C-alpha cells in the first residue's frame, strides 16, 4: 500500500468530516446562502494567492522530474485567480481589501513555514493533502449541484480531468518520495499529512461560519 493511501486511511475520521461538511452539502444541494459562499470566495482567493509562493518555494529543491509539473501549476493558479475575479464581478462579491480570517492566516503560515523549514518530502506532503482534499471535496459537490448554478464554474475547476491529473501526479510522486525516506522523516510526513487535513476541515468550517479573528474583531478591528 502506498504512503498516501495508508495516510488517507489513518486520517479517515477527519476526511469523512471534510467530505460531509455542511458547506459542501449545501452547495451541492443549491441551498447555500450567497453570503456564506461569498465568504468562502473572499478567503479562498487569498489562499490561492498564497499558494503561488508556496509552490514556488518548493521549486529550488524539487527533483528534476517534478519541476515541470510544479512550474506548470503556477500559471494554473493565476488562472484560478482570474476565475475568482470573473465570478466575483458576475455575482457582486468584492474581493478588494479582504483581511484573512484567523484560520486562513494560520493555514497559509503553515504552508509557507513548511516550505521553508521542512524537508522537500514534508512540504510536498502538505501540497498533496491540500489538493487532494479540494478534489475530493468538490467531487462531493459535483455529485448533485445544478450545472446552471452560479457557483458551478468553481466545481468544474476542481473536478476537471486536468485537476484530477495534477492530483494523481502528486499522489504518485508522494508515494515515491515516501518510499525513499527513512522512518523518522516518514513520521514527520505523517504528522504534516494529518495537520493539513485538519486545516482543510477548519477552512470549510470557517467558510460556513464566517469566523474572522476570534475575540478581537468585534472589539478592536
Amino acid at each position: 500500500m502506498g504512503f498516501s493511501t495508508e495516510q488517507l486511511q489513518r486520517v479517515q475520521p477527519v476526511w469523512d468530516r471534510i467530505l460531509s461538511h455542511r458547506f459542501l452539502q449545501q452547495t451541492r444541494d443549491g441551498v447555500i446562502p450567497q453570503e456564506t459562499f461569498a465568504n468562502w470566495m473572499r478567503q479562498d482567493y487569498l489562499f490561492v494567492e498564497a499558494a503561488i509562493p508556496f509552490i514556488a518555494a518548493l521549486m529550488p529543491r524539487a527533483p528534476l522530474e517534478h519541476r515541470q509539473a510544479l512550474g506548470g501549476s503556477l500559471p494554473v493558479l493565476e488562472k484560478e485567480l482570474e476565475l475568482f475575479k470573473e465570478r466575483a464581478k458576475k455575482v457582486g462579491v468584492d474581493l478588494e481589501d479582504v483581511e484573512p480570517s484567523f484560520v486562513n492566516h494560520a493555514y497559509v503560515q503553515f504552508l509557507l513555514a513548511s516550505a521553508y523549514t521542512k524537508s522537500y518530502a514534508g512540504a510536498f506532503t502538505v501540497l498533496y493533502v491540500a489538493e487532494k482534499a479540494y478534489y475530493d471535496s468538490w467531487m462531493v459537490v459535483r455529485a448533485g449541484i445544478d450545472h446552471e448554478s452560479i457557483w458551478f464554474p468553481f466545481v468544474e475547476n476542481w473536478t476537471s480531468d486536468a485537476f484530477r491529473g495534477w492530483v494523481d501526479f502528486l499522489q504518485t510522486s508522494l508515494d515515491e518520495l515516501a518510499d525513499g525516506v527513512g522512518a523518522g522523516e516518514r513520521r514527520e510526513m505523517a504528522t504534516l499529512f494529518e495537520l493539513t487535513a485538519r486545516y482543510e476541515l477548519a477552512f470549510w468550517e470557517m467558510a460556513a461560519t464566517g469566523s474572522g479573528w476570534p475575540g478581537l474583531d468585534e472589539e478592536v478591528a
Partner: protein
Amino acid sequence: MAFTDELRAAAEPIWDAQLEHPFVRGIGDGSLEENRFANWVLQDYRYLKEFARVFAWAAAKAERLESMMWYATVLDLTLNTEMDLHRQYAARFGLSPDDLEAAPMWPTTRAYTDFLVRTAADGDMADLVAALLPCAWGYVHVAKHLAEVGGPEDQRYADWIAQYASEEFAQAADWLKGEMNRLAEGTTADKRDRLKNTFLLSSRYEWAFWEMCWHGEAWPV
C-alpha cells in the same frame, strides 16, 4: 515620531485588550487558577523553541556585526538559559521536563510560531523584527503594568512579573525597538504599512495566546 511609536499607537486597542484580558489580570492579582497558568507554561515552552529559530534566521540575515552578535547572544540565551529556567519554573507547577516535551502544540501556538518562522524565512530584517517585537516588547509592557498595579501574593506569579519587568528584558525590548526604527528609516510608505500590518498581526497573536491559555484549546478533531 519614532516608527515604534507609530506601531504602538496603531496597536493600542489590542495592547489595551491584553492588559484587560482575564488571564493577564489573574496573574496580576494572583487569582489565576493554576491549571490555566500551566497551559501557558506548556505552550510557552513550545513557543520558545520556535522563537529561538527566528533568532537564528535573524543572525543569518543581519547585515551589521553588532546586530548579528546580539541575535546570536539572544539565541544562545534562549536555548541554553531561558529554556532551562523555564523547566525549573515549570517544576513549581508540578510539570516535569517530560511534560514540557510531550505537550502538544495547540492551534494558536502553531499558527503564531508558523507566522514568525515564515516571516523570518521569507521577509527581510525589518519584517522579521516587526514580527518579533510584539512579543519582546509586549511582555515587558504587560509585566510593568502588572508591577505598577500591585503584586500578587503567590510568589510564582510575582516572580513571573519580576522576570519580564526586569531591566534585562526591558533593555532587550529597547534594543529591538531601536533596531526597528533603524531598519524602517528611509523605507517607503508602502513598506512601513506592511511592517505595521505585521506588527499588528503579531500583536493579535499575542492576545490570542492569552485567550488560548485561559480557555485551553484543541484541534476540532
